[in-house]
């Protein structure tokens, strides 16, 4: 029983990372119809932004405070990178899927290569507050605090995003745009501006995920993001394009399946089980758990 609790806690931590990585991807794909293959590489940028702050910003001695700054810096990096990428590379290629894929694939290689060239391909270990490695007992299970932290931040992001989508005018535009972009334009709304906003939001979330991923995976390499890309796409498809709630559920399902199968069946089989889960969802509900068929 305690093993199951530990596995669940680990799964929820991993689910949090998957959610942060995939929610932006899902919105970008759902609203903008852009398959951003570089999204996971942006996740990696967040990891290295956090690492730089934790490694170099010795001005702030207290590690918890430094980590808080690292998260903020990662998000700012994400916003800036997202804005530049959308404005310079994506904006002029809306509707041209092949070009989008080629450009973002190239961008992913460039980001990975740049990170490797600047920081080397050797794993970097992020300095962490001691509290992260401490254990909290939950129902008899020994849960590392870092997992609780990652899950907590991700849950906070989820609630904030749901609130934003439900209550704000921008959220309303995004929800409507996922369903029917053309009609949103016909109501006098500049969809292109929403596109930029969503791309920036997605990149910021990915970088936040990358910063937390640096904690979860202990060490980071330039391949941190790209290694997770396949799982991000699986989460997006299972959850349904453009659905924040669906992405959260799918992230939990994928992470839990991976962890349980890896532990109880065989290490490595968890990834295959996730593909099986994807196939099952596609057969039973092709639009994803909470997805809808877009009309334009």
């Amino acid at each position, binding site marked *: 029983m305690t093993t199951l609790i530990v596995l669940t806690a680990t799964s929820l931590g991993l689910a949090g990372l998957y959610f942060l990585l995939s929610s932006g991807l899902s919105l970008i794909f759902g609203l903008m119809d852009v398959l951003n293959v570089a999204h996971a590489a942006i996740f990696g940028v967040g990891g290295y932004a956090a690492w730089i702050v934790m490694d170099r910003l010795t001005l702030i001695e207290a590690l918890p405070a430094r980590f808080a700054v690292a998260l903020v810096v990662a998000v700012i990096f994400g916003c800036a990178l997202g804005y530049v990428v959308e404005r310079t590379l994506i904006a002029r290629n809306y509707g041209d899927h092949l070009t989008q894929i080629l450009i973002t694939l190239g961008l992913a290689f460039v980001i990975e290569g740049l990170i490797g060239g600047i920081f080397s391909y050797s794993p970097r270990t992020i300095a962490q507050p001691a509290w992260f490695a401490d254990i909290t007992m939950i129902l008899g299970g020994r849960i590392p605090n870092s997992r609780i932290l990652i899950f907590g931040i991700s849950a906070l992001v989820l609630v904030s995003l749901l609130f934003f989508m439900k209550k704000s005018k921008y959220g309303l535009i995004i*929800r*409507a745009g996922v*369903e029917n972009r053309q*009609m949103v334009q*016909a109501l*006098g*709304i500049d969809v292109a501006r929403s596109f930029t906003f969503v791309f920036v939001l997605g990149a910021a979330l990915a970088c936040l995920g990358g910063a937390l991923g640096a904690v979860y995976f202990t060490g980071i390499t330039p391949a941190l993001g790209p290694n997770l890309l396949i799982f991000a796409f699986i989460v997006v498809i299972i959850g349904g394009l453009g659905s924040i709630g669906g992405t959260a559920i799918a992230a939990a399902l994928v992470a839990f399946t991976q962890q349980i199968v890896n532990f109880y069946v065989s290490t490595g089989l968890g990834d295959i089980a996730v593909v099986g889960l994807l196939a099952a969802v596609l057969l039973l509900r092709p639009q994803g758990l909470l997805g*809808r068929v877009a009309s334009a």
Partner: protein
Amino acid sequence: MPGGDAALSVQDLQVHRGEAHVLEAVSFEVRPRRVTALLGRNGAGKTTTLMTILGLLEGSGSIRLFGEEILGVATHHLVRRGIGYVPEDREVFSTLTVAENLRLAARTPEATQRLDLVHELFPDLLRRSAQRAGALSGGQQQMVAIARAILNPNRLLLIDEPSKGLAPIVVGQVVEALAKAASATTILLVDQNIRVAQRLATDAIVLDHGAVVFTGSMEDLAADADLTQRYLGVAPSSRDSTNGTVKGSAQ
């Protein structure tokens, strides 16, 4: 000069969709504060014309709104300049509530005040404001679609098939709402239901295979049995002068 006094002047409009030449040098004018019916059989190019005016499709030629060239202007700018649009298949946002659909459409300070007018026209929408638009009946969805368009003051309303697929009693309600909207704005109306067009419109344009084959008054069109039969596939009808209802049959 074309377009001088017209609310809308379309000149030599050409539109291609894929391989098809959908509109071939379409030219017509819409007089201000009038309802003009754009009629024709299926595939004549009516919806394409509306979508091109609204900038949702690309075309060549000239489209002037109160004298100002608008061809090539982005859709959201055109809407902000005062063009309202009710699409053919309602296209309400099914995952949003009725209130959210209206909130999304509200873009001017007047919209809040006009919301009362909308609820007066369609009291059902007030009762169902918290309901998802996708769960509404076809008629109720049409009310949402019209409400979104008339929530803001418009200089021109483009309305595509407002009676399509609706029960006769709902059509009556929709026509009543459009008649009220017509008192304050210019309307270009597409409708397969000739009776609806006759009740609302004073002017008519008939399209056939992407070309204009008639422009004139609705009365002249209704009086031309050969024309209505050939291009609209309907039997002649006449307007009852006492109550404004129309006798006649649509095939």
